[in-house]
């Protein structure tokens, strides 16, 4: 089944095209729009993007596979990214990660059985002064404690 963007996202796409002298430059913004809609970028979405931008589908796939935040396969309803790079590691990131794994019952990289939460680790999220921290979807949670992590994860699992 061919991929189509919602009417509102199509309008956004048209506006995005006006920002650049080439269509190709809209590639990453367009991939974000597709991912916002489906949670990931399917092969059909890649073909759609290729057609819109005058690129080969393989070129689009090359872009998709390069960037960490573009998901080539479905993920949970929510993505939890715990930063593991040095400044966070120095302030307890390893324990936070372990705590999340226990609380969610999954290993890093896996999704809970109910499909609600995918747990991932992230490299430096530019939050080093408020470490340890994690990003849930588009929001940052900083200066984490285990208790705070529990509150956040419970909210995600209940919703």
């Amino acid at each position, binding site marked *: 089944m061919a991929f189509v963007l919602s009417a509102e996202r199509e309008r956004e796409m048209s506006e995005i095209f006006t920002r650049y002298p080439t269509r*190709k430059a809209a*590639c990453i913004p367009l991939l974000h729009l597709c991912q916002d809609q489906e949670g990931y970028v399917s092969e059909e979405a890649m073909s759609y993007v290729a057609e819109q931008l005058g690129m080969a589908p393989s070129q689009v796939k090359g*872009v998709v596979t390069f960037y*960490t935040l573009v998901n080539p396969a479905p993920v949970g309803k929510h993505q939890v990214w715990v930063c593991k790079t*040095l400044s966070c590691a120095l*302030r307890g990131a390893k324990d936070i990660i372990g705590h999340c794994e226990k609380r969610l019952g999954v290993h890093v990289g896996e999704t809970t059985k109910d499909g609600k939460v995918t747990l991932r680790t992230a490299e430096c999220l*530019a939050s080093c*002064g408020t470490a340890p921290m994690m*990003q849930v979807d588009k929001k940052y949670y900083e200066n984490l404690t285990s208790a705070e992590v529990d509150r956040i994860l419970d909210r995600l699992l209940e919703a």
Partner: protein
Amino acid sequence: MLKPVKILTKMYDVPEGWTMRAYERAGGYQAAKKALGMPQATVIDEMKKGNVRGRGGAGFPAGVKWGFMKPDPQKPAYLVINADEGEPGTFKDRTLMEKDPHRCIEGCIIGSYAIGAHVCYIYVRDELHLSKERLWSAIREAKDRGFLGAHPFGGNYAIEVYVHTGAGAYICGEETALLESLEGKRGEPRLKPPFPAQRGVFGNPTTVNNLETIAAVPTVIEMGGEAFSKLSSLHHLNDGGCRLFGVSGHVKNPGIFEACVGLTLRELIYDLGGGMSRGELLGVIPGGSSCPVLLPSEKVNAPDEKSVLHPWHGQSVLDVPLGVDTMRNLGTMLGTCCAIVFSDETCPVAVMQNLMAFYRHESCGQCTPCREGVGWIDRIVTKLLHGEGSVDELDRIHDIGNGIMGNTICAFGEGSAMPALGLVRKFRRHFEEHATGKPCSAGGRLDA
């Protein structure tokens, strides 16, 4: 020398300081209005006098970089702002975008005009959603006020500013990889030359400036370049003004602090950072993970009067003012000016393993020395961390690191190899203990 100021961070504690109303009330956009009434060459000249060394890590004089742009009616120029803030330990640009986005936009207006660009892209890493939101809001407000668009400030020099989003790739903080990414491709760095001023985004002359660099521009115009530069105690080294300093890791009070250039690591760690949160200082990475580590026991060796470091000969490296040239002469780098501090309860092998895992993940994979070399060093240090490697393998890290440096398309090679070599050299004893199967006193922990 500790000289705190509230120039760049003036709006940080103002309620809703990110709005046009607050920014204009504080005198905002007067500098842009003034600049657009000056000849472009004069604006560039003020920037040169300001001695603003690029705040992204390379420390290249921003005014000189602007001067490289030559008008070409066939190929319109672009200003591209690097807000990809991905260097481990670095979290300063984010504060500017979140708390004073109008300062950033005003800097983009002045910078675009100075170099002859009519379009500016601010490349922001995707994860900084609030930053993007505040920048877009500021752009909309600036357009509504007539400061952007076809006739900024009623003149005829059109300027548009757009936010462009990344997608999770540290390498896109490298300027040519950023341009590739902006063009819609994989973020794979280009060979230089040609430099962006000759062939940049879309093949056109481009200037890439770090976000903090462009955020300093309104102040440079407002105060005048020379006055701005003279805020710094390293003005004589052409390292001028004030800037944001960061500190994280094992300090009581991690955060971003504004001070005049000339602050020392000791002042950053103990005065601004509140001192150690545990144990004693074991090592400090001065400006983001790509900078070689400094130990508190190291002393400055600069007997020659002509040496940049001579004034601090015999003193602790912690008492050398943080500047682009002073840090380079110490065998490290100022980098992003955001220090990572670790205590003597930390395992240096674990520190290196954490960083090499980062570099291995983030290598774009184009060139063999980096792709294979960084992976190899990561495998060795991981073995060492678990008490499994050998002294032979430990020694081999030097060969691998030297095989990477100077042999890659971009500075990521040096950025990963130099800190690795610094750590294994300066913490030789800890690494040898691990290599001979004896865990070091810190037992492989980072946060004990």
